[in-house]
């Protein structure tokens, strides 16, 4: 028996790693991967809660998260390609035209 809080803690660590990655990484693709990491952390807590509360809907949510993540990956990577095509860089610190 593994306490629920362990799973939640693991999910939380993954999520925190994801946020930190988002903050400290400069490469757009890596930043994007950090987002996926966050989603995975959340997914873990979904599944853990599903097991805890005996509710399969938790697992269903995971599928929806995955589908959204897939859609997001498709669009996001397309955007990255488009950005790279115009700016010739993947460093977000150099992609900063959107300001006053």
């Amino acid at each position, binding site marked *: *028996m*593994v*306490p*629920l*809080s*362990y*799973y*939640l*803690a*693991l999910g939380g*660590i*993954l999520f925190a*790693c994801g*946020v*930190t*990655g988002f*903050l400290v*990484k*400069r*490469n757009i*693709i*890596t930043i*994007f*991967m950090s987002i*996926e*990491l966050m989603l*995975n952390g959340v*997914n*873990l807590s979904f*599944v*853990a809660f*599903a*097991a*805890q509360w*005996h*509710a*399969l*809907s938790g*697992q*269903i949510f*995971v*599928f*929806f998260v*995955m*589908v*959204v993540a*897939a*859609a*997001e*990956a*498709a*669009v996001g990577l*397309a955007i*990255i*390609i*488009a950005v790279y*095509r115009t700016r010739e860089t*993947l460093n977000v*610190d*150099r992609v900063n035209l959107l300001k006053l």
Partner: protein
Amino acid sequence: MQLHLVLFVIFGVVCVAGAVNLLVQRHPINSALSLVVVMGALAAEYLLLGAEFVAAVQVIVYAGAIMVLFVFVIMLLNAGEEERTTGSRIALLFGVPGVVAGSLLIAWVLLSRFGAQAVAIGALPGPPKVIGWLLFHDFLLPFELTSILVLIAILGAVVLASHPEAQPKKER
């Protein structure tokens, strides 16, 4: 069953190591592979929780499809090592402490709330049949909406990634 705890710890450590490696590595392809590792380990965690279908889908969709796309794009754009630019002091000054503070708060709440409760492993197997039933009955509307979302995402991706000058060539 200590075995479960042992397995949990093993895969949990792999997970965290992968996540940290994602942060530490400077080359995106290493980060991507770390993420694949994280996802594989997560699939194992799902198996421990009895969610075997989720685990399989996690591998197929995340590791097998989404991350392949990432790797593909990294290869396509020939992304190199990360530059160490300091474009944003805010992210370090406010963001990282914010993350740490928020995580600590949540952890504290979780531990004080659920510290004692244990999950009955395998108590809730997620057989594909039941999940399919739920998905196509109770969650039919969200399911269909998601399908529309995916369709839009496909169209968006095609439009975004296609060359603006590219003319549709005629098949000969």
